[in-house]
């Protein structure tokens, strides 16, 4: 599961008011190269939740993204875009779990696929 996906997923358990972002429990992280597309990244920069991305990337062992949300001029920097690209698209949580920030319920991630299926009492 790459962080692009994590940046959009929320805990969908009944009654949870703030299910974003999901915390990450890591068992296995892998890196897979992806073609660098600056136009796509500039578009994503406007839509991504920065704090969620930074925290998630640090959970996966990548500490190159700045904590504070960068100014929009940051996207003019090739260096910045490459770090953003790496964090958003090239890091994968292969095994582990996503954790609901409110209930601490774990959604397992197996072979890179998060399982967001709810139990009967959570719907």
């Amino acid at each position, binding site marked *: 599961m790459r962080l692009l996906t994590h940046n959009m997923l929320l805990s969908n358990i009944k009654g949870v008011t703030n299910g974003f972002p999901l915390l990450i429990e890591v068992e296995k992280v892998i890196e897979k190269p992806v073609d660098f*597309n600056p136009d796509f990244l500039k578009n994503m920069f406007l839509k991504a939740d920065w704090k969620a991305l930074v925290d998630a990337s640090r959970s996966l062992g990548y500490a190159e993204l700045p904590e504070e949300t960068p100014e929009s001029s940051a996207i003019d920097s090739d260096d910045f875009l490459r770090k953003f690209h790496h964090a958003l698209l090239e890091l994968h949580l292969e095994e582990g779990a996503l954790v609901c920030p409110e209930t601490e319920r774990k959604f397992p991630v197996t*072979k890179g696929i998060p399982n967001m299926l709810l139990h009967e009492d959570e719907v």
Partner: protein
Amino acid sequence: MKLKQLESLLGDLQQFSNPKVELEQYPTGPHIASRLLYTAENSFGDVSNKVVADFGCGCGTLGAAAALLGAEQVLAFDIDTESLELASENAEELELDINFVQCDISNLVWRGQIVDTVVMNPPFGTRKKGVDMDFLCVALKVASQAVYSLHKTSTRDHVRRAALRDFNASSAEVLCELQFDVPQLYKFHKKKEVNIAVDLWRFVPKRNQGKVL
């Protein structure tokens, strides 16, 4: 990529070996899948360089087609573990990098406007009544640009009304009518093959302004 080439590549994908009738698992044939994505890309530019989501991906045909036509990122959702395994194998076979998520679309909660286009061949609601509308409702919340979906022609008026009146669509257009050939997959199927008339729809959501859904 030419339509014929796309159709041919999709024809090599593995289909369900043990389809589950309660989930209405029917493969989206390469004929329909290739035309759906080809139209989305060539008539509307809704695929290449976009983030495309395949709802109820099954064996992954629509998602694969989107990736082959140049989608920047493809997300594929399904409720069934075996389908996701199959879809993963199919993606690997075609060397496609697809993001899979296991979930029930009816209770999917999703943030923001990252997904541009949703493509889907949803269950028709013959087993779980209303599930086709659940899929459409969520698709119109998730997609920021367009939703492409297949629904039985017999439900055309109902679908249009629901989309425009209840699900926040600014437009709902039937692009064409297709024949969905349903092979004899299940024990209760009496005929060798049946053709069902389906509409290929294109819906445009009203702007959501990036709220959490």
